[in-house]
C-alpha cells in the first residue's frame, strides 16, 4: 500500500465505496485523524500551554485573576443598570445577579473570540512545521481549540465557585454543562478550520476578525437579554449562532432549568454543520495551502 500515490495533481485513494460508505468515512475521518495523531496533539498542546505564560512568574495565577477581575468590574459597572427577566435574578443581591448573568455569557463569548482572533494566523504560526516536515496541519485547529478549552474551564471553575458562594447552592442542571460545551468546542474547531484556511491565502482575514469580533460582543446577548428586542428581534438574534450557546448556558448554569429544545436543537445543528463544513473546506484546500503559505 503506497504512502504517497498521486496522479496528475490528485491524491489517489484506492477504494471502491458507495455514496453511503463514503459519507460514513467522511463523518468518521476527523475523529480517526485525531486519534491517530493523539501523541502529536499532546506534545504540541503541552508546548502551547507552556507558551501562554512563558516568562511570567505568577504563571497560572493569571488564569484565575482574569475572571476574578471581570467579576469585580461587572458587578460595579452594571449595578442597577440592567433590565433582566426575573428568572435570572438568582441571588438576593441584584448587582451580583447581574454579574453572574454577564459572566455566564462572557465565558462563552471569550472562548469564541480567542479562536476567532487566532485562527486566521494559525497556519502562519506553524509555517515551518507545515513546509519542512510531514505535518497534519488539520490538527492545529484542534490543538488550539483544546488550549482555549483549558482556559475556559478555569474561568468556568472560578465562576461556579463564585456562584456557589453568592447563591449558596448550585442547580442540578449544571451537570449538563458537557452537553453544551462539547457541541460548542466542535463548533469552534470547525470555525477554526475555515478561518485558518482563508487566513493562509490572505492576511486580510486576520484584520477582518480584529474588526468584527468587538462588534459581535454587542450582537450577542452578553450584556443584555434578547427579550429586550421584542418580537421578531428576539428570534432573529439566534441567526448569530453564539446566541443559542449563551442562552443554553444561562439556562443550565443560572436558572437551573432544561433549555428550550428548539434552541438546543439549533445549537446542535450549527455545531455539526460548522464542524463538517470547516473540515470539508480545509481538506479541499490543504494541498494548495502548502504552496501559498
Amino acid at each position, binding site marked *: *500500500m*503506497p*504512502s*504517497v*500515490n*498521486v*496522479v*496528475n*495533481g490528485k*491524491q489517489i485513494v484506492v477504494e471502491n465505496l458507495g455514496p453511503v460508505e463514503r459519507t460514513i468515512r467522511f463523518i468518521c475521518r476527523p475523529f480517526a485523524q485525531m486519534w491517530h495523531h493523539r*501523541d*502529536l496533539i*499532546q*506534545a*504540541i498542546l*503541552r*508546548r502551547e500551554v*507552556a*507558551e501562554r505564560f*512563558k516568562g511570567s512568574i505568577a504563571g497560572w495565577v493569571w488564569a484565575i485573576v482574569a475572571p476574578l477581575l471581570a467579576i469585580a468590574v461587572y458587578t460595579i459597572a452594571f449595578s442597577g443598570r440592567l433590565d433582566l427577566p426575573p428568572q435570572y435574578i438568582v441571588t438576593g443581591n441584584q448587582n451580583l445577579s447581574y454579574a453572574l448573568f454577564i459572566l455566564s455569557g462572557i465565558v462563552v463569548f471569550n472562548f469564541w473570540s480567542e479562536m476567532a482572533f487566532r485562527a486566521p494566523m494559525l497556519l502562519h504560526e506553524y509555517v*515551518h*512545521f507545515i*513546509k*519542512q*516536515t*510531514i*505535518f497534519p496541519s488539520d490538527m492545529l485547529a484542534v490543538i488550539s481549540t483544546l488550549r482555549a478549552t483549558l482556559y475556559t474551564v478555569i474561568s468556568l471553575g472560578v465562576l461556579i465557585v463564585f456562584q456557589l458562594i453568592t447563591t449558596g447552592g448550585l442547580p442540578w442542571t449544571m451537570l449538563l454543562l458537557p452537553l453544551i460545551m462539547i457541541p460548542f468546542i466542535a463548533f469552534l474547531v470547525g470555525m477554526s478550520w475555515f478561518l485558518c484556511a482563508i487566513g493562509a*491565502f*490572505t492576511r486580510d482575514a486576520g484584520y477582518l476578525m480584529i474588526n468584527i469580533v468587538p462588534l459581535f460582543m454587542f450582537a450577542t446577548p452578553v450584556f443584555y437579554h434578547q427579550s429586550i428586542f421584542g418580537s421578531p428581534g428576539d428570534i432573529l438574534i439566534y441567526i448569530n449562532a453564539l446566541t443559542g450557546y449563551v442562552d443554553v448556558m444561562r439556562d443550565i448554569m443560572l436558572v437551573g432549568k432544561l433549555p428550550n429544545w428548539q434552541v438546543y436543537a439549533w445549537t446542535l445543528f450549527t455545531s455539526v454543520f460548522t464542524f463538517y463544513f470547516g473540515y470539508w473546506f480545509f481538506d479541499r484546500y490543504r*494541498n494548495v495551502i*502548502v*504552496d*501559498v503559505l
Partner: protein
Amino acid sequence: MSSSTSSDLVVEAKHLGKAYQLYARRNDWLKQVAFGWATSKPFSKPFPVLRDINLAIQRGESIGFLGRNGCGKSTLLQVICGMTLPSHGELRVTGRIAPVLALGSTFDLELSGRENVMIGGAVLGLKRGEVQRKFSSIAEFAGIGDYMDQPVKHYSMGMRTRLAFSICAHVEAEILVVDEALAVGDAAFQRKCMDWIEGFREHGTLLFVSHAKADVMRLCRRAIWIDDGRIREDGKPVEVVRSYARAMETEPDDMKRFTAV
C-alpha cells in the same frame, strides 16, 4: 499492479512535473479566483520547477542528488516526501519516510532541547513512549551534554543540527531524505553522521542532497544530476560528479533560469 519486479520499488515517478503559479502583483491570485473562469488569459504565469521526471528507486538504494541552487532538487524531495503535491505526472511512494530537510528550523527557541525532542519525535510520527525510551540514546548521539535542558535559543547552529539529526536518526525510517542538513556540523559530528548513514544504508533507502561531491561519492551508489527541473544525468557517482563538475566550470551562472516563461 504488484508484479514481482515492482514490489521492491519504493519510489516510482512517471513524467512528474510541478509548476508554481507566479503572480505579477501580490493580490493577483484573488483576481484569478474571482474572474479566472470568465477570462481565457490567466492572471498568473506558470513557473515550472520540475519537468518530466522519470525515476525508479529500489529498496536499499542510496542516491545522491546534485544540481545548482534552484534547479529543483529540494522540490523533488519535498514532492517525494508528500509535503507538496506535483501538478502533473504519476508518483508512488511506499514506506515510512523521514525528512531530515530542516527539522532544526521547527525547533521552538524558547523551549529546552528536551522538550523539542518530544515535539520533533512526535512530528516525525513517534509515540510518546517511544521518544521517552529513546531519549537517552538521542541525547548521547547529539552529544550536547547539559545544553539539553537549556532553551534552544542559546544553541549554536551546529548544536541545533546535531540535535535535529540525532532525532531523525532514531525514527526508524525506511526512506531517509537528507537535504544539505549536515553542512554546518563540525568534522567530528559529520563523520559520526556519515558512519550512521552508512549503517542505515544496509536496511534502508537513502536520498541524499549535498554539494560536497566527496560525500556523494562515498555514500551513494547512484547519483542523479538535476538541471533546470530535468534529470540531466543518472548513473554511477564517479561519472555524474565528473560531468557535473565540468559543467560548473564551463557553463556560466545563468540568472535567467529564475525567470518565468
